[in-house]
C-alpha cells in the first residue's frame, strides 16, 4: 500500500471527528470526536515514519498519546464538574459564561 492510502484514511477519520465535534450536543460525544481527530494524526505520524525510514514519527506518536491521556482526564473532570453544577451534559444548556 502506498503512503497516500494511509494519508487519505487519516483525512477521512479526521473529518469524521471534526464533524462529530461540531454537531454532537453531548459533551462526552464532543470529547470522543476529539479523540478521533488525535488518532488520525497518529496514523499520519506512523505512516510518515514508516515511509521515510525515520523513527522520529513514532516518538511523536508517543507524545501524542500522552497528551491525549491528559486531555481526556481533564475533559472528563470538567464534564463531571459541569454535571454536578448544572445537572446536564448537553452542550447547548451549558451557557455559564454567557454574558
Amino acid at each position, binding site marked *: *500500500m*502506498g*503512503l*497516500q492510502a*494511509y*494519508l*487519505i*484514511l487519516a*483525512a*477521512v*477519520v*479526521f*473529518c*469524521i*471527528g*471534526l*464533524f*462529530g465535534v461540531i*454537531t454532537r*450536543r*453531548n459533551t*462526552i*460525544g464532543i*470529547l*470522543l470526536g476529539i*479523540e*478521533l481527530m488525535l*488518532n488520525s494524526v*497518529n*496514523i499520519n505520524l*506512523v*505512516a510518515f*515514519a*514508516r*515511509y*521515510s*525510514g525515520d*523513527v*522520529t514519527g*513514532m*516518538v511523536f*506518536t*508517543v*507524545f501524542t*498519546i*500522552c*497528551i*491525549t*491521556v491528559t486531555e*481526556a*482526564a*481533564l475533559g*472528563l*473532570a*470538567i*464534564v*463531571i*464538574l459541569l454535571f454536578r453544577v448544572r445537572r446536564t451534559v*448537553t452542550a*447547548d444548556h451549558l451557557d455559564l459564561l454567557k454574558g
Partner: protein
Amino acid sequence: MSEALVFYFLAGLAIMASALVIGQRNPMYSVLLLIASFGALAGLYIQLDAPFVAVAQIIIYAGAIMVLFLFVVMLLNAPQEDAAGWDRSHPLRRPGMSRIGALLALLLVVQLAWAVLSMSGVEAPAGTGGDAVSSVRALGRTLFTDYVFAFEATSILILVAMIGAVMLARREGDEA
C-alpha cells in the same frame, strides 16, 4: 496483494466504526464503537511495522482512556441526546443543518484526498527490511537521547493534569 486486502478491511472497519461513533445517539454505544475503531487502527499500525505504537494504542486508548470514558458515562447516566429540546428559533439549530454539515465534511474529505493524491507520493517504504523503524530499541534510543527534554516535560504535563483533575472533581466542602 494480501497486504492490500488487510489494509482495506482494517481501514473500512476503522471508518465505519468512526462514522457510527458520531452517528450514535447513545453515548455508551459511541464509546464501545470507538474501542472497535482503535482496535482496527492498532492493526494498521502493526501493518506499518510499528508494533510498539500498536501495543500502546491498545493499552492506553482502549485500556485506560476508554475505561475512563465508560466510567464517566455510567456515572453520569447520561441520557440520549434529545432532538426535541433544541431552541429552534436559531437558524443553525434546525434539524436539517447536520445534513449540510455532513456535506461540508465530505467536501473537506474530497479536498484533502485531492491534495494528497496530487502530491508526488512515496510508493515503496524506505528501507525494505524496516528493522530500523520497527525495533523498539531504536525508538527508545531516540526517545531518551534526542527527545529526553520533551519526555521529561511530558511527565510534568501528566503530573499537572493529574493534580488538575483531582482539583476539578473535588467537592467544594472537602478538606483540601
